[in-house]
């Protein structure tokens, strides 16, 4: 055989820029790439799904900006709330950019066609949300802009539609499996390698700049608001390539997940006046957060629910409490919270006007991820060295604007502000960059992975391992953690990873082999879990969403710093490094709501 015939069959695409993921961050970046580089620019968006299926579409309650359309507000107040909400692990220079850019970005989104709810004066309407306050904590403020309770849906639609208008090229139903880095972790990123779901063919996308906007990895937990497809693909790919993952121990548990199902009931239900009650009918948040009550930050409310349950005040002694929205009235429920009311009716068979709604905290959002600067450039180490040609934005990235705990409505803002900024920065890099060099080893590696999985005749089913992983991560690395729990969890995850090396794909066909996709996603989930547990075990303090029963206090002396977790290529424990938090304006203070 000659070398040429031994080379794997790979379909090649030469583009200027590639965006992986078609949620809000990816689509806004694609839009800015087209706007900045012109109609001739070859901009490709690759997604596992159809773009309109992206999980941005599931976001509900709002996107915040200090527009002040209904009452006085200032972007500096928003900045403070973001820093405090993040329990002072936020990089304050980055949060400043986000909160300042928010106003202009929301206006731009309206210009693109976003169907915001309106005030009587025709301006963008705004409502309250957890942790957003006037004048640094005095009282709740109306800062969340919204489109009923489907704000994410409206954002996703608007950006997808404008990308269609500007003729962005979409590669739907391709699963990206590797980066192209022909010179290793110290060199450029020159593209990605993907598996086309419809044919199982390998495609090599070569580009002068690559953006990962691949979303989160909530499926490492059993009870989660996340879509089945949120398996941390991009995060794990970066990790496997020797790049660090920042602050992985900070995972947000949203207080009002639908009991057992995990889907979210928007914080907007409390923003519009709903509240939590325990099994004794008591509004218990008044005891935990006297000023903000049910609108304290999410980590605080989730822990309060756990404490009520631990004290035997769950409903009927079980592991849930109630959300009470009965008093909001038909008009608010039907006009401002129609989808939420529909979820309650469809999945519980309950009537929100007359029934209490069972809720429990649900794994919702990764504050951590691929470290970036404020223009989406991926950082290769804790010293701040950028990886040429590689960008990340949205939930898969860590700027860090959310620190230890993200405020509600700041996720949609994050994807818009930093998706947009990344797109603009990428356009500049594309103008200056030379033609990308292909990474043949990456192409061959992905081909081998596919072929081996399809050829293996028997083994364990990926779903069995996936279920065990989600179970132990939820029970051992959830709202409350201890050294003992995390130690057991780490051992269990390692054992699961060993079993995962021998899974069987029953579907041996090439067309739409979603069984193969499941097996590949399992590997990504395991990598995300490994970095999460290792980072959590090392951090011997409680801060934001990372609550250690054995270290209940925040420790600003030793732990006011970001974790950078590097994968151990030999399969051992990840190497952890640390980077100081950037503090420019707000010195750390005790966090009281």
């Amino acid at each position: 055989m000659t070398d040429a015939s031994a080379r794997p069959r790979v379909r090649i695409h030469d583009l200027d820029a590639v965006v992986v993921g078609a949620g809000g961050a990816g689509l806004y970046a694609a839009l800015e790439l087209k706007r900045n580089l012109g109609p001739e620019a070859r901009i490709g968006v690759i997604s596992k799904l159809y773009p309109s299926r992206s999980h941005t579409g599931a976001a509900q309650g709002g996107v915040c900006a200090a527009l002040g359309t209904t009452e006085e507000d200032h972007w500096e107040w928003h900045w403070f709330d973001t820093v405090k909400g993040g329990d002072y692990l936020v990089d304050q220079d980055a949060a400043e950019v986000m909160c300042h850019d928010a106003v202009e970005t929301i206006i731009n989104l309206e210009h693109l066609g976003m169907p915001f709810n309106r005030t009587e004066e025709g301006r963008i309407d705004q409502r309250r949300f957890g942790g957003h306050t006037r004048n640094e904590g005095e009282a709740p403020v109306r800062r969340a802009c919204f489109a009923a309770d489907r704000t994410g849906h409206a954002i996703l639609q608007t950006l997808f539609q404008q990308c269609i208008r500007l003729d962005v090229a979409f590669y739907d139903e391709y699963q990206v499996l590797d980066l192209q880095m022909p010179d290793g972790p110290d060199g450029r990123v020159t593209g990605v390698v993907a598996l086309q779901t419809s044919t199982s063919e390998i495609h090599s996308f070569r580009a002068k700049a690559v953006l990962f906007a691949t979303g989160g990895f909530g499926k490492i937990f059993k009870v989660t608001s996340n879509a089945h497809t949120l398996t941390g693909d991009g995060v794990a790919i970066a990790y496997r390539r020797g790049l660090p993952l920042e602050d992985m121990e900070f995972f947000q548990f949203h207080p009002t997940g639908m009991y057992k199902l995990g889907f979210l009931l928007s914080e907007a239900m409390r923003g519009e006046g709903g509240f939590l009650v325990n099994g004794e009918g008591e509004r218990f948040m008044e005891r935990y957060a006297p000023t903000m009550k049910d609108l304290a930050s999410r980590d605080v409310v989730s822990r309060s629910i756990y404490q009520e349950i631990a004290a035997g005040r769950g409903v009927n002694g079980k592991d849930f409490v109630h959300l009470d929205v009965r008093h909001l009235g038909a008009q608010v429920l039907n006009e401002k919270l129609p989808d939420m009311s529909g979820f309650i009716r469809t999945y519980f068979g309950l009537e929100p006007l007359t029934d209490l709604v069972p809720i429990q905290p649900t794994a919702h959002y990764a504050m951590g991820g691929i470290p970036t600067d404020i223009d989406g450039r991926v950082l290769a180490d804790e010293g701040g060295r950028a990886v040429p040609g590689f960008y990340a934005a949205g939930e898969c990235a860590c700027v860090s604007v959310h620190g230890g705990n993200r405020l509600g409505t700041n996720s949609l803002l994050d994807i818009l502000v930093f998706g947009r900024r990344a797109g603009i920065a990428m356009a500049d890099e594309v103008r200056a960059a030379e033609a990308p060099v292909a990474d043949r080893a990456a192409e061959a590696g992905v081909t081998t992975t596919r072929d081996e999985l399809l050829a293996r005749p028997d083994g364990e089913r990926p779903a069995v391992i996936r279920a065990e992983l989600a179970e132990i991560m939820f029970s051992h690395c959830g709202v409350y953690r201890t050294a003992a729990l995390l130690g057991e969890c780490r051992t269990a995850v390692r054992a699961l990873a060993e079993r995962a090396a021998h899974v069987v794909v029953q579907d041996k066909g090439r067309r739409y082999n979603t069984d193969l996709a499941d097996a590949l996603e399992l590997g990504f989930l395991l990598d995300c879990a490994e970095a999460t547990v290792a980072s959590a075990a090392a951090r011997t303090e409680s801060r934001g969403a990372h609550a250690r029963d054995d270290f209940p206090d925040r420790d600003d002396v030793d732990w006011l710093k970001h974790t950078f977790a590097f994968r151990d290529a030999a399969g051992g424990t990840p190497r952890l490094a640390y980077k100081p938090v950037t503090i420019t304006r707000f010195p750390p203070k005790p966090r009281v709501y």
Partner: protein
Amino acid sequence: MEIQLRVRRYDPESDPAPHWDEFRVEAEPSDRVLDLLHQVKWYQDGTLTFRRSCGHGVCGSDAMLINGRNRLACEYLVKDAGSRVTVEPVRGMRVIKDLLVDMDGFWDKYRSVMPFLVNDEVPTDGLERRQSPEERDRFEDTSKCIMCGACTTGCPSFWSNPDYVGPAAIVNAHRFIFDSRDTAAEERLEIMADADGVWRCRTIFNCVEACPRGINVTRAIMEVTREVSGTGHG
């Protein structure tokens, strides 16, 4: 409870023709039909193929014909579906594998109606365009569409004429035709006035029944039809 799940299967790589498979699945009454499909795929037969993502009715991936009606598998509960559940791919689109159909034509039709706001002028005060709550209400209903295809693939007019642009595309045209900020209504109405546009609707109302978002699809089509007539494009 034990559910008897019948699924219409077809793998063009190995099957000469579609056939029915039957599975027995343990489920709670509160489980969704999507849970049944996952039980089969994960633990019984990994070749069973379907699309899904969010699992709670907002992404639009898993429209299927369940017990004879178009529904989202993640929105239909076992307690409503009963102990015998029949699942087939939606009609009117080429079956690629099992419950997964070729959506290319569907997306082409969506794109054909200019599904984006056209207005390159922005207010001189640097703020958002103004729009009253009443103006926004004109397209609130059609802005809910998640492009699941339940309406179009439940439409007899579409089954008999695959070139018909279909209810989903018209809903998305409506979304912009009735947006006070948009400036391209004329062009969209011309597209709608095409022989394969709104006139193909026979007001059978299957689309209204099929829509998991509760959009009054037929009303939207009628409103677009009225605009088309009123502006002389008919």
